[in-house]
């Protein structure tokens, strides 16, 4: 039995008729054509598919689109505001926090959540927060530096305000 869902993704509300077994990541990529969210493992392990649902970073390959009915979703495409990169995005840019880039959307979404909860994390806290995100290229060191850089950017921004 098909089901109609209404989901607000990056500020735009969508209504679609879906099969209950449609995964949130398929809804985002194949129905809404937002292909910034990646599918790495399909088995809940790699974190490439991480998006925010009602402010919580989740692996969208392990959630049904139907579970997101009525929710607000932010994907990597919705992070930059007014043409300006999110501090985590510019941190990854400046510190070379990526090589092939496959893991990057998920890494950035998870990092944004880490900093939202803990504006001043230690390296160890960043690594603990990113345990659910695998990167086969960077060796993680530059990712941790990128997140530290983002933390500084966000702090100086909030002081300036």
């Amino acid at each position: 039995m098909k089901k109609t869902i209404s989901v607000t993704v990056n500020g735009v509300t969508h209504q679609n008729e879906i099969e209950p077994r449609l995964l949130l990541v398929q809804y985002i990529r194949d129905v809404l054509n937002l292909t910034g969210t990646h599918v790495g493992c399909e088995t809940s392990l790699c974190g490439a598919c991480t998006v925010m649902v009602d402010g919580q970073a989740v692996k969208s390959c392990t959630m049904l689109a139907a579970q997101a009915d009525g929710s607000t979703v932010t994907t990597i495409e919705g992070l930059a505001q007014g043409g300006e990169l999110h501090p985590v995005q510019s941190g990854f840019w400046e510190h070379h926090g990526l090589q092939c880039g496959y893991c990057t959307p998920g890494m950035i979404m998870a990092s944004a959540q880490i900093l939202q909860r803990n504006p001043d994390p230690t390296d160890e806290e960043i690594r603990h927060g990113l345990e659910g995100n695998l990167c086969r290229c960077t060796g993680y060191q530059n990712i941790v530096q990128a997140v530290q850089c983002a933390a500084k950017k966000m702090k100086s921004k909030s002081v300036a305000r």
Partner: protein
Amino acid sequence: MIPASFDYIAAKSLDEAISLLATHKDDAKILAGGHSLLPAMKLRLMQPKVLIDLGRIKELSYIKEEAGQLRIGAMTTHFQVETSDLLRRVCPLLPETATQLGDMQVRNKGTIGGSVAHSDPAADWPAAILALDAEIVATSARGDRVIKATSFFVEMLTTALEPGEILREIRIPGGKGKSGQAYVKVRHPASGFAVVGVAVNLAADGGKCQSAGVGITGVSPKAYRAANVESGLKGNALDAKTLSAAAAHAADGVDINSDLYASAEYRKQLATVYTRRALEIAASRLK
């Protein structure tokens, strides 16, 4: 990886979920965080015809003190347990367990009730629930039923929940006197699940151990209370020699799991060493 087709119903209240489960019976599965169920459905290890989602039932998500107990609603996420100020103060074992479970995204979505109902032999919660001598409240059209944690975990992926029952709440008895708790874990490097996980809840008075709860997961097809470890502690001064002698009984009388990552012999050794470490940490925290 796409699950087989099913119907999806988002229950609006616990009563509605109970009556939906009574209608659809064995065809239906409860959906909590979906972080054990959906992976199994994607692999088609499970093919329920109907999913009854508890995700919108706000009344199932809480952590509170009531009637001298701590009460945790089934749909409380691992993250909510991890960050609860109340629990950090009165039952730090639970946040310490939560923070070692899975990863941040899994903790954001997975629930304590879902994990306990699922009863994975390598899950973390069962160890803590056993060490704390918790009770599990199951509810159905017939009303509530309270089940002791020690009789809840029946075998691998099997609990004392009966058809038509929903796990509603977990109750933890209030502590008496000085207590010291700890959870230590050997994480499987790929899955994050417990190769061995040991939860300890000690109470002491006048330097002597008054009560000891030791729950162990990962070692055996179901999590268990290490009775011989506990009896080696009770009534004794908690010095290094006592702790180490008691820990030697960590895997007494249980079938020990063996897999590619850890043979039964190695697991047994890990269980002994990690039980000793957990006891040492818990004893050092007695206050």
